């Protein structure tokens, strides 16, 4: 009986530890990466829902250069030639456009 007690408490400790570890594991969000294609003079998709901390990658599939510029010019990518990519971690809602082709607009919404 004396030898059982430590074993039992050991099992209980391991059970509690694994439950705690398991719960923690469920709470931690693994940031995702999303793609926005620039094609035929549009951002596809024009509106994208992401989680805080996710990364968005823009890829230019057009013949002409584009950029990705925040609507108040708080941040901007360099000019992206055909095939170029640019990425940014998203922490809040963002409205953006192409400063080369002002009619091209996009939106990121953080859930």
């Amino acid at each position, binding site marked *: 009986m004396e030898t059982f007690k430590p074993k039992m408490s050991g099992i209980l400790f391991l059970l509690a530890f694994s439950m705690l570890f398991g719960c923690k594991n469920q709470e931690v969000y693994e940031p995702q990466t999303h793609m926005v294609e620039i094609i*035929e*003079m*549009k951002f596809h998709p024009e509106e994208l829902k992401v989680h805080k901390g996710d990364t968005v990658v823009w890829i230019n599939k*057009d*013949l*002409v*250069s584009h950029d990705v510029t925040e609507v108040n010019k708080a941040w901007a990518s360099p000019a992206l030639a055909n095939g170029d990519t640019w990425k940014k971690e998203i922490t809040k809602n963002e409205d953006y456009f192409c400063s*080369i*082709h*002002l*009619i*091209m607009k996009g939106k990121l919404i953080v859930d």
Partner: protein
Amino acid sequence: MKKFRKSVLVIGVLLFSITFLSSAFAQEVPTLSDAEIASVAVVANQNDIDFAYIAMEKSENPEVVNFAKTMVADHQAVIDMAVELVTKLGVTPMDNAVSKQYRENAEATMDMLKSKSAMTFDKAYVDNEVAYHKAVIDAVKSVLIPQAENGELKALLEKALPILEAHLEHAEMLQKKL
């Protein structure tokens, strides 16, 4: 009764004019080979680059200058792709009635733009950009794409179309501000 007869007459004349003009236009649709289409595409793009260089020199409006810079970069990119393609296909762009007409019209437009004062230049340039892009989009849709025989040439023209449409929308946006 007199008023009614007059209205009928006016409608009749209008209908006749539309029918006549439509058939005349239909008869005038040129038939172009791929080498001629390539020439039209290069000339049409080069014309807009030439207009843009005048704007970059004469305009004092940053939005107009930025638009002109975009026209130079985008139309040059299309020309580069066209040249790369015809080189690959072993086709030499062939001058023709359409490309000659485009070039002559462009010379008249450049004279007109150069004659404008700083006060009137921006409106003249942007108005021309709207009209020019509408005309080129129409030609690409109704003549160049349907007549292109080579698949890669057709694909290049189809890729250029949204670029031209975006330019038109951008020019119309500027036009409203001037």
